[in-house]
């Protein structure tokens, strides 16, 4: 009895195999004539000429430009159905519903962007890396957060050329540099699609749009690179940061995707203090330095980082001949803060990275 029950269960599980194998031939007699495009395949896709009820043997009109030729005409192969679709019928072009291959709802995604490069660098150059996290609440909507660090954040060659050749440079706020930052927001996926690469590889992708807000740490160049040594910089504090971006998310496997995005980081750039020192602090330290006294003796505010202008910059080498006295930056910093400037900067960057979905 027990054996019989198990046998019955086994046959029930295996039945679909035999049913599916016999499916296509069983339907052949019913499809003696080319059928209209099957409802499951074409009811929500683009329009295409429906199949004629009777094929006209002569005269055979030349195919219209762009028409699809899916195989020899009038053969049994042309009547074959695959999942109910007449793939091999030359009079029918089959189109299917855009179906997402991988679901995203409730999935979490960690994105690593090892290559983040600024593409609109007129007065500045930024190259960095970013780490992002996305929580897909719905198929087309998710929450995202990202941290960014620009390991290269310097003034552009163009700005340096202006300084060298014309003794001019961009205003301090316009050339303010973004050291790094963090922001959080939302991500939506309004468009999705697929493409085929060389008729062989089918790849699904989505267009992603993002927006967020956060904060970024900034600095300005004080001394350009010259005979006295490399360029010197002064920290100018944290700024509010807004982000807006868009790009492509190409999913190769269930758990890995490739992201190519353009993100614009917008922040208000102002130079009202350098290394936490305002104009009064910088003036006091400059007077101490001119009097031959240590700058640490100046009466400054609590936020002022006096050590930034004290001692020597050794450039991490043993050549003491090229050591740079940091107090020489006081005059440069004082001029920047004295002629206060402000601007709204757009740091448009290209983000190339890989994501892990789990």
């Amino acid at each position, binding site marked *: 009895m027990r054996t019989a029950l198990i046998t019955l269960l086994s046959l029930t599980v*295996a039945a679909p195999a035999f049913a599916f194998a016999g499916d296509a031939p069983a339907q052949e007699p019913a499809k003696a004539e080319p059928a209209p495009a099957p409802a499951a395949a074409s009811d929500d896709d683009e*329009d295409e000429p429906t199949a004629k009820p009777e094929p006209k043997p002569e005269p055979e009109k030349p195919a219209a430009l762009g028409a699809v030729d899916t195989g020899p005409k009038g053969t049994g192969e042309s009547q074959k159905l695959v*999942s109910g*679709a007449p793939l091999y019928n030359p009079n029918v072009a*089959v189109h*299917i519903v855009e179906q997402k291959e991988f679901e995203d709802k409730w999935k979490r995604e960690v994105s690593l962007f090892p290559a983040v490069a600024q593409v609109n660098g007129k007065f500045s150059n930024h190259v960095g890396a970013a780490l992002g996290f996305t929580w897909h609440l719905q198929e087309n909507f998710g929450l995202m957060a990202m941290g960014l660090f620009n390991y290269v954040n310097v003034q552009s060659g163009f700005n340096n050329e202006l300084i060298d050749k*014309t003794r001019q440079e961009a205003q301090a706020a316009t050339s303010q540099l973004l050291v790094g930052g963090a922001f959080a927001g939302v991500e939506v996926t309004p468009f999705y699609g697929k493409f085929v690469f060389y008729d062989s590889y089918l790849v699904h992708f989505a267009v992603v749009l993002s927006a967020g807000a956060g904060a970024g740490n900034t600095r300005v160049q004080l001394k350009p690179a010259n005979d006295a040594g490399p360029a010197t910089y002064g920290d100018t504090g944290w700024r509010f940061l807004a982000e807006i971006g868009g790009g492509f998310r190409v999913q190769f496997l269930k758990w890995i995707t490739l992201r190519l995005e353009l993100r614009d980081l917008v922040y208000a750039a102002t130079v009202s203090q350098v290394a936490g020192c305002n104009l009064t602090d910088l003036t006091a330290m400059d007077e101490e330095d001119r009097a031959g006294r240590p700058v640490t003796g100046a009466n400054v505010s609590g936020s002022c980082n006096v050590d930034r202008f004290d001692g020597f910059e050794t450039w991490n080498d043993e050549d003491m001949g090229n050591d740079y006295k940091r107090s020489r930056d006081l005059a440069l910093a004082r001029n920047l803060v004295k002629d206060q400037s402000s601007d709204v900067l757009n740091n448009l960057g290209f983000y190339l990275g890989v994501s892990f979905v789990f």
Partner: protein
Amino acid sequence: MRSISALVLVAFFTAGPAFAAEEEQGALVEKVAVKNRLFNTRGRFELGLNLGFSVLNQLTEHYTGNLNISFNFVETFAIELLAGGSYTRHTSLANQVADNFNKSNVMSSDDLSNLWEMVANGTLGLRWQFLYGKIGGLLQDVLLGNPIHFQFYVAVGGGAGFFKRESVVICNQTSTGRVGGECLQYLTETKASPVVTLALGWRFFLPTIGNNHSLRVEVRDFSYFDSYVENFNRAAALTPGNELGNGTPVSNPGISNLVQVHVGYSYMF
């Protein structure tokens, strides 16, 4: 026990192919539906018009119009002829640099790089259209009712261009005849030079009767040799016949890159 195990194994190995076969046929349907393209380009001529603007303007800005004639000799490759002209000018930054330098007391310096403006261009190249796909979602459901078919391509080409250049620091004529006066005429040059172009772009096929129409969006770079002088003297440059101000051409001026965004329309015959 052994008979039960055997029956379970038989069930497993016979049921497994059922699901695998069903998944394979689904993939076949999907693959054939994208592979059998709605829009074929093989053997078709194209005529198009592109309008472009420079992306990152430093001292010059370009607004370009190009005529595009292509022949798709296979589905994924096309020969592309591009010819056009640009409206070019100095940016406000360039004018500001010129004014400030003219008022300064710097007497000798080097001219600035990347000041050549591409006035006209003609290139012949190859376009590789290696991706064909469809976009759905919001576009399909709300905006257009049909998915949008597209191609993604890479194009490379070479040819020649006609260029003009106006310096912002070498002044050949001032209102006072001396350094420091309002500059009336800056050093101006023209030349013809080779040009290399590289582009990445999308072509979106318009779902209209005839399957002839498409829109393009591309980022295109035009690269050409730069040239300028160094160690010029402002006073010497005011001397008639000495427009370079005793300056000497820079030995390695580098290459200028004009990066533009082009939007265009193509008609396929």
